[in-house]
């Protein structure tokens, strides 16, 4: 065979492997940076822009996990209630990757499978859905979602102890180049060693002819140690009057995490009207290590630490231990993704590429058939090697740790301060529940110090505060009010001497001309994007006990830049008129001395039409 033909054949043989990076996973580091700074609205928009649409898409579940996570952190769970329903439904569906087609049989290793998340990611997703239900006061669904996060785990410790794990740890397990290693990566090396040991145990089981569930390895089914799942289940069960279920959940969580005994006792006592679920940091990175990067391992991004959550209310502070450290469960072999282990086991040791190329190189030039067989084997080998890399898709926006704190807040509003190590967040407007009621608030702390996080000065009036009886002008017209257009808002503007002669429809028309969408208007919260204060086209009001509320309304933003000629002209006229007013009347910035705004309950604007809707439509058509 001529050199040119040989070259062509070799290229062709390796071509399939070169095509595969299209399926590779790229972390969204920009979104991670936004999350660490508490800019969940911007992160949500990024995720939504690139999210897959079809439920059968490989990354559909992953995208939904991120969307739910970011909307919850932003304080707008209403925006993703239908998304969470679909996510839950997909997570509860078995057999998503049961596909017998040839392509699937060859290629369903790694990233071509429909992503359902590692077990701990599934647990986290169920937890976030449970929290969303809790924030919306749906205790039955909260309990159910929390219950789903508490599936049994497989404990392989006996099988692993019988192997030679120590040598694996001592020798390391490959991984990223040493130059790029950090202390947290050193920790991850040990974790990767355990994963390699699991793969080795699986391979040995296969050699011994064992197969089946857990890849033929001996294991003990053990109760989950997903602490936050138990705590949420207990809170919801108590609320539903299911005392036995609550007791069981609390008994188990104390068994798996004795440090949580005081929290368990407080949940059982019922002496609280507010539950705070507080999360911090970002989840570990998943990467491939070992031969062909076939072994999936996790590397912490936010380091684990024992820092308690300190909650300050009315001059008194309380400390709450970490409920769940995601770094810990992500690296635990109990939480191992057996699909990752299976893929690594089946690919490590494969010498098909070398064997194939050797066959082609040493064969008789005249024996084209032998060459072709060898090169085809090489091509298939390259294909298998490329597809046998670990599936490293993961939700990089999940939190690193969770806390649960309880409080008995006064009505109507409270100043609550949260601290985790050097990270602080002050929420001045946390509503206290009426007697006998229970509220659950979700707070995702920024990981980096942010001035707005500790600011106590409300900079923008909004749907929850109303106009606070001060001079009030819409942000889009040069003011500091971001209420959605309504009669109440218009009356506030007119009391301040603006928009006289306007009707509510006229006010709405201004927003329409600016192409600003109002979340919740017409009952829809679909695809809520970046807030107008941050340069986006949406107007929404996050829950008052959320990081999103604090970031949006307690810091200064760039002045609004009108898009329509009408708003430009109106704004110019108003600003000219304002300039002629006495200075004391022109300040529209609410000051720190203002009383706390009265709590206004966010209405649940969008209703999920549910499973039965479509069936009913057919029934009554």
């Amino acid at each position, binding site marked *: 065979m001529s050199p040119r033909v040989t070259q062509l054949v070799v290229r062709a043989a390796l071509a399939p492997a070169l*095509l595969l990076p299209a399926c590779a996973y790229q972390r969204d580091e920009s979104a991670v940076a936004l999350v660490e700074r508490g800019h969940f609205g911007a992160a949500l928009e990024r995720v939504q822009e690139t999210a897959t649409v079809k439920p059968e898409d490989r990354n559909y579940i992953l995208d939904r996990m991120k969307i739910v996570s970011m909307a919850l952190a932003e304080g707008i769970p209403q925006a993703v209630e239908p998304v969470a329903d679909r996510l839950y439904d997909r997570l509860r569906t078995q057999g998503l990757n049961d596909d017998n087609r040839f392509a699937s049989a060859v290629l369903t290793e790694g990233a071509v499978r429909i992503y359902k998340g590692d077990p701990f990611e599934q647990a986290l997703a169920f937890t976030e859905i449970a929290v969303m239900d809790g924030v919306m006061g749906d205790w039955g669904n909260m309990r159910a979602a929390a219950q789903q996060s508490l599936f049994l785990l497989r404990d392989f410790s006996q099988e692993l102890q019988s192997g030679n794990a120590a040598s694996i740890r001592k020798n390391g397990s490959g991984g990223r180049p040493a130059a790029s290693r950090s202390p947290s990566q050193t920790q991850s090396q040990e974790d990767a060693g355990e994963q390699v040991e699991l793969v080795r145990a699986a391979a040995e089981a296969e050699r011994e002819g064992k197969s089946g569930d857990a890849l033929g390895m001996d294991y003990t089914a053990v109760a989950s140690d997903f602490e936050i799942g138990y705590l949420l289940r207990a809170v919801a069960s108590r609320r539903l009057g299911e005392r036995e279920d609550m007791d069981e959940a609390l008994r188990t969580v104390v068994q798996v995490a004795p440090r949580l005994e005081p929290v368990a006792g407080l949940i059982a006592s019922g002496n609280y009207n507010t539950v705070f679920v507080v999360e911090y940091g970002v989840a570990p990175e998943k990467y491939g290590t070992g031969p062909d990067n076939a072994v999936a391992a996790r590397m912490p991004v936010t380091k684990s630490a024992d820092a308690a959550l300190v909650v300050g209310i009315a001059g008194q502070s309380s400390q709450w231990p970490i409920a769940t450290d995601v770094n810990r469960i992500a690296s635990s072999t109990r939480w191992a993704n057996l699909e990752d282990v299976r893929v690594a086991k089946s690919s490590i040791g494969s010498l098909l590429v070398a064997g194939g190329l050797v066959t082609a190189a040493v064969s008789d030039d005249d024996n084209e058939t032998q060459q072709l067989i060898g090169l085809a084997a090489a091509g298939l080998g390259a294909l298998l090697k490329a597809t046998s890399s670990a599936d490293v898709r993961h939700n990089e926006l999940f939190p690193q740790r969770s806390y649960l704190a309880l409080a008995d807040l006064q009505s109507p509003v409270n100043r609550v301060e949260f601290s985790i190590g050097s990270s602080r967040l002050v929420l001045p407007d946390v509503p206290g529940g009426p007697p006998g009621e229970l509220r659950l608030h979700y707070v995702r702390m920024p990981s980096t110090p942010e001035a707005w996080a500790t600011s106590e000065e409300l900079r923008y009036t909004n749907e929850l505060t109303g106009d606070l009886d001060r001079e009030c002008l819409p942000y889009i017209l040069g003011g500091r009010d971001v209420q959605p257009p309504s009669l109440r808002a218009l009356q506030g503007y007119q009391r301040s001497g603006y928009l006289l002669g306007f009707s509510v429809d006229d006010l709405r028309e201004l927003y329409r001309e600016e192409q600003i969408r109002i979340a919740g208007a017409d009952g829809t919260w679909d695809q809520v994007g970046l807030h107008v204060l941050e340069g986006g086209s949406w107007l929404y009001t996050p829950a008052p006990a959320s990081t999103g509320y604090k970031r949006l309304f307690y810091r200064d933003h760039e002045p609004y830049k009108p898009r329509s000629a009408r708003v430009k002209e109106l704004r110019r006229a108003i600003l000219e008129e304002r300039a002629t007013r006495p200075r004391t009347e022109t300040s529209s910035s609410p000051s720190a001395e203002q009383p706390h705004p009265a709590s206004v309950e966010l209405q649940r604007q969008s209703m999920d039409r549910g499973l039965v809707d479509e069936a009913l439509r057919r029934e009554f058509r």
Partner: protein
Amino acid sequence: MVRGWIRSFVLLAAALLASGCAAQAPEARTSRLTGRDIIETGDQVRASLADSALLAGRDRTSPPIKLGLAEAVNKSSDRLAAADRWALTALVVYDFEVQQLLESRNVRLYLPEDTEVVLESMGLGPGSRVDPGWIDRTAPTHVLRAEIRSLARQGSAVAGAVSDHRQDVYLIDYRIVEFDSSRVVWSRTGTVAD
């Protein structure tokens, strides 16, 4: 000839990859309640109510019963949308035969305006399903409640295989409770097994 083989091999590989990256055709399955389950449960419960002792001794001259609806309480191990929780009770009375029967026993439907708005928003408004004249806005005397529980079993279809099969049995307890006495005057358990 060699080039032809190469071209064929590349095309085959590309086709395999394209199909691998694209959507698959999974045989997905779930053991969650479906809309059909909810509708069928309503059918079961209606039949039981029609034959109940609560209605047996009554006629148009009996003391009036104004029957309110409550959203079902989900105590199962699965989430259930608010619309489906309401459907579990509303569908019991959204049937003209049941309405005629209940009217003949001097039982009317209590449906306050705010509840009606909520039901409408979920596609469950009485609309054409209920005779408007049968609806009463004054204080109810009784309420129809429902509570959902479930039993889940998980395992593998084949011994030793990965355990990703699950079965759920849903038990839906219906009760009509008299407000003044808190007495349960009728009850029925509907069962849904997948």
